[in-house]
């Protein structure tokens, strides 16, 4: 016979773990800045493209996050932060460029030099 606490623990364990719903520092985090100007420049679609591309390519150790701070300038700005804290900033990002960042930087660990800020 299991105690109530044990049953509770089992239920918690079997619950879908939406790990990306809690900020996870063991994952590579892709921050998309969301200012008024960045929204006009297509930041929502860039953010969605990152999330969809990570899912399509079955990458579970990276997550796309909306940056809760305004950016300077009028372009879509993106920070890629590795678990060790290493950060690369990209500027002028479009959905097409987002796919390349996933392919080259996230999967193959090669910074896309031409998009760097």
């Amino acid at each position, binding site marked *: 016979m299991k105690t109530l606490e044990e049953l509770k623990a089992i239920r918690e364990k079997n*619950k*879908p*773990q*939406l*790990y*990306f*719903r*809690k*900020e*996870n520092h063991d994952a590579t985090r892709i921050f*998309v800045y*969301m*200012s*008024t*100007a960045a*929204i*006009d420049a297509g930041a*929502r679609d860039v*953010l*969605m493209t990152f*999330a*969809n*591309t*990570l*899912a*399509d390519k*079955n990458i*579970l150790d990276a*997550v*796309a*996050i*909306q940056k*809760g*701070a*305004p950016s*300077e300038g009028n372009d879509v700005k993106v920070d890629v932060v590795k678990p060790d804290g290493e950060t690369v900033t990209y500027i002028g990002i479009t959905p097409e460029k987002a796919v390349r960042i996933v392919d080259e930087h996230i999967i193959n660990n090669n910074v896309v030099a031409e998009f760097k800020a």
Partner: protein
Amino acid sequence: MRDLSLNVLDIVQNSITAKARLIEISINECSEDKTLLLRISDDGIGMTPEQAQLAAETHYTTQNGENSGYGLPLIKALTEKTGGKLEISSAPQKGTAVSCLFYTENPYMIPFGDMNATVAVLICCNPEVEFIYQRSRNEKSYVLDSRHMDDILGGCLTQGGVIKRITEYLTGQENILYGGAISNENT
């Protein structure tokens, strides 16, 4: 012209910057009055009444030196062009609520845009924030609460997969909202 869904993203971004942990978005349409009322409220750091009043004026920002803050004046102008208005109520440590009234039959009414994409991205790409999204049209309504999504997600785990599930769910609800209303008018 910038659509309503991008304006919602812009106002919500202010709430996120204000360290909100729970953000409520409601959109209520009334065919009889020909109105759309958008309300976004948060539990963020809030503003003094003076700051709140200034927030809807051109280029005001509470973040020194950064170019946020022209979202609200823009949306205010868009509401007023349709004959509507924007109202802000706020108190320090209590949060902020922004209400936007649009007259939907006015030729200056902005397009609705992809609201479901905005809501899905907000829920899935803000790990520390919970959202309640409520929509109504005449007597029909639905709610999505990010704290209670297990039924919708059905065990789906990836971020992109969850965005897709949420978008599909919201599209289905939206169809009921509009579809049923049209058949009522026909009878």
